[in-house]
């Protein structure tokens, strides 16, 4: 339509149709502007993709664990050499099971158990966690002593890494964690069919451990579960009650305004400040135990409350006024109107908001660090008052471990956390789809 290349002189004299509106330039600017928008979205989605790919690619191997299945001889001369298990059952608890495991692997490899140097290497080949595996077998059935049985033992973390191909074997032997001898053994066992890589249930059940192969999220999962239960039990009733008051009963006055301003500000307070509050009030003032899920749950409750209140108020507001008028019109009191008519209709919205609030609380780390959830807890807590950790805190602790195998576990734990969050969010979406009503 326009020709910007026309000589300038022509513009003054020619008909208006030939004037230069700069349309080409303006359309180019329009194009560039659109491009910026697309680039921005691509950057955002690109980072999302990189983030997820990096986590999945580094973390999925944590879900399998190299294990060695060998015939183990439960030799009475090692486990109970004085033959006193009938009178003193503690012998079976404190027996030297690692030697039993070591001997079994040596036998499978054809290594003489008198070869001290080779036995030291074998000791590093099998996880120390085989101690508890074998102990459990013997304690469950002491008659196994003196017999031989096929047992699946965990491989040590370095061997696990080597088996998953994560160790660069071209590096000189003294600069890597796995010796050539151990790699040769690994291949030998593989050929015998003794090596397997089953699903790593230990990742989800074990407690804290300094050995990567026996470290798991068991304590953290139980701790997080307790905390979520506390948040649900405390934040949901309080949040719904507060929203009902503010939405349905509160008069427009200074006090109500003050509450509203408070809620809006609490929603934007940095989460670490809640940790300081928990430390000062719950632990120092009320004397609650450190590292306990109850304190964590209460702190997360206070943090989640604004989210739930805001979601609940929106859900209550979405119930049309005609419902209220109808209820009042047939003689219900205001309280009956709210609890019998408005609240049931708002329930899907409230639950959706609650699940999203819970998901946020599940991923929250900073306040939990301050109330002592950074703890080495090996045994699963049996009540919310026992020391425990939480899922994101466990990730943080593993991230600070130096050993290579913990990197894999860290990413695996991140995946577990993300899977839980995804499930919760999907539940929220389904709930909304299924029950949301458009008026």
């Amino acid at each position, binding site marked *: 339509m326009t020709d910007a290349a026309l000589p300038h002189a022509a513009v003054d004299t020619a008909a208006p149709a030939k004037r230069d509106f700069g349309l080409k330039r303006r359309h180019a600017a329009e194009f560039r502007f659109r491009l910026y928008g697309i680039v921005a979205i691509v950057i955002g989605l690109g980072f999302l993709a990189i983030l997820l790919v990096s986590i999945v690619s580094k973390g999925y191997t944590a879900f399998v664990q190299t294990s060695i299945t060998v015939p183990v001889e439960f030799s009475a001369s090692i486990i109970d050499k004085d033959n006193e298990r009938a009178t003193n059952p503690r012998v079976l608890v404190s027996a030297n099971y690692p030697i039993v495991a070591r001997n079994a692997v040596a036998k499978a490899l054809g290594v003489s158990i008198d070869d001290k140097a080779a036995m030291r290497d074998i000791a590093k080949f099998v996880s120390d966690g085989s101690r508890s595996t074998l102990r459990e077998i013997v304690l469950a059935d002491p008659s196994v002593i003196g017999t031989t049985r096929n047992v699946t033992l965990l491989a040590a973390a370095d061997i696990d890494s080597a088996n998953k191909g994560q160790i660069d074997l071209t590096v000189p032997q003294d600069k890597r964690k796995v010796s050539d001898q151990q790699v040769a053994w690994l291949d030998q066992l593989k050929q015998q069919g003794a090596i397997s890589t089953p699903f790593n249930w230990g990742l989800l059940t074990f407690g804290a451990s300094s050995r990567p192969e026996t470290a798991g999220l068991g304590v953290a999962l139980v701790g997080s579960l307790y905390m979520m239960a506390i948040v649900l039990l405390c934040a949901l009733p309080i949040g719904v009650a507060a929203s009902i008051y503010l939405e349905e009963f509160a008069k427009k006055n200074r006090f109500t305004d003050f509450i509203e301003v408070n809620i809006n500000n609490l929603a934007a307070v940095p989460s670490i400040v809640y940790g300081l509050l928990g430390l000062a009030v719950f632990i120092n003032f009320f004397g609650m135990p450190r590292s306990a899920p109850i304190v964590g749950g209460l702190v997360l409750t206070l943090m989640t409350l604004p989210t739930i209140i805001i979601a609940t108020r929106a859900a209550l507001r979405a119930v049309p006024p005609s419902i209220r008028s109808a209820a009042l019109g047939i003689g219900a009191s205001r*309280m009956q109107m709210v609890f019998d008519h408005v609240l049931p209709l708002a329930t899907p919205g409230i639950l959706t908001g609650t699940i999203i609030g819970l998901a946020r609380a599940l991923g929250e780390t900073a306040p939990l660090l301050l109330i002592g959830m950074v703890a080495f807890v090996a045994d699963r807590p049996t009540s919310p008052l026992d020391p425990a950790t939480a899922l*994101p805190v466990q990730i943080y602790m593993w991230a600070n471990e130096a050993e290579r195998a913990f990197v894999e576990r860290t990413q695996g734990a991140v995946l577990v956390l993300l899977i839980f969050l995804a499930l919760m969010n999907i539940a929220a979406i389904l709930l909304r789809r299924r029950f949301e009503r458009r008026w």
Partner: protein
Amino acid sequence: MSAGWVVAIVLAIGAIAYFFSAQRARVQRDASDRSKEVPHSLPTYHGWLSFIFATVPALLVFLALSAVSSAILESRVRTEVSAHLSDTSAASLSIGIVHNVSSALNRLDLSGANVPTSYAALRDMAKSSGIVLADSGEDYMLPLAASVNADAAVHKLIGQGLTLLLSLAGAAFAYSRIRLRLRARNEVERVVLWSLLAASTVAILTTVGIVLSMLSETVHFFSEVNPLNFFFGTVWDPRFAAAGSGGTEGQFGLIPLLAGTLYIAFVSMLFAVPVGLMAAVYMGEYASSKVRSTVKPLLELLAGIPTIVYGIFAVVTLGPFFRDLSAALAGGFAFIQAQSVLTAGIVMGVMLIPVVSSLSDDVITAVPRAMRDGSLALGATRSETIRKVILPAALPGIVGALLLTASRAIGETMIVVLAAGVAARINFNPFEAMTTITVKIVNQLTGDLEFNSPQTLVAFALGLTLFALTLAMNVYALYIVRKYREQYE
């Protein structure tokens, strides 16, 4: 009888009261002559009223008595312990030991004549049952702990007896009041209304709790460290003192931490604002509804990912990538450190993209349709309309949104804990590590800590600073947003 049992019994009494009261109201209703007297409330309301009478006063009294009892015992332990001590600074430690001894005596089921006379003997007994006691206890604590236990038992008995009596009395009173014309529904509704009001004051209590707890610890801190040295000090070197040694004066300068906090927040905003704003503009003005409905939830996924995950991403993937990249560019020397302002800023920026874009989306859609149509009708292109009409009109709201985002960046913890490093220094090279207020709060408060040293109290002063900073930004931002929204409504 434990507290849980008392509560359970009180609730059971309430349930029984509910059942019988509702039954009585039902009988009265059925026997009444409607032409003379119409019942006021449904029977269930009479039931609920009795339940309330049976439980609420009893449980409140139970709570109050427990609090009074523990306060009395606490003050008694405090006076007796300080009578035995010359140095009052160790009092809290000794009080703690006395409490441990009390609970050990309870768990070992020792009382009166069975209590051993020396602390060492008790410790050995405790040890054999798997209870660990501190080394530094003294013999005077044993009779004290035993008598505290005895008193506690008496208090408990009184408290529980009173609670149960009150519960029964309340139930009986409510039962005796039941009449046809009793306004039971109104009374129940009044109690419900008050409890709704109480629930909504939790928000106020939380704010008050935050401010008071941090303020008192901060005052405590400033009694040991000059506030001027804190607010204007340029050196951060808290020098962790070993427990009880005391006397090692650290330096608590806020300036390097504040500089790091603001710098990292600035870098993250530099990344997040253009990306987030352009994404919001594109999705609001250009994208088809099909594109929008897939891209928007995907971008919002970024907001749902926990910050610890971003932190891990920074420390495991992005930090080493930048380090290796810079090493490759500069021929071996990695001028970007693995933990750096740049890494932390960019990762935090990614986290903030959905925040910026959803906040500015709200603001942009609030600009009236007429302004947009007017501009387009005058022949402006869409980008001209956006740049010259919509964005200027939305500017105050966008500024508010950016302030809210910045306050998120300042208060963010896990990303900087993992990605920014712990070196407190003032430097403006974005490729090196700096530290932030939140990192130092975490550092000072994790691990074994002695609560009353300035090294830990400083965390509360830092927290209060952070709270004040973010609160001011939020209040101002909300003010701008609200004022702006009113303009077009």
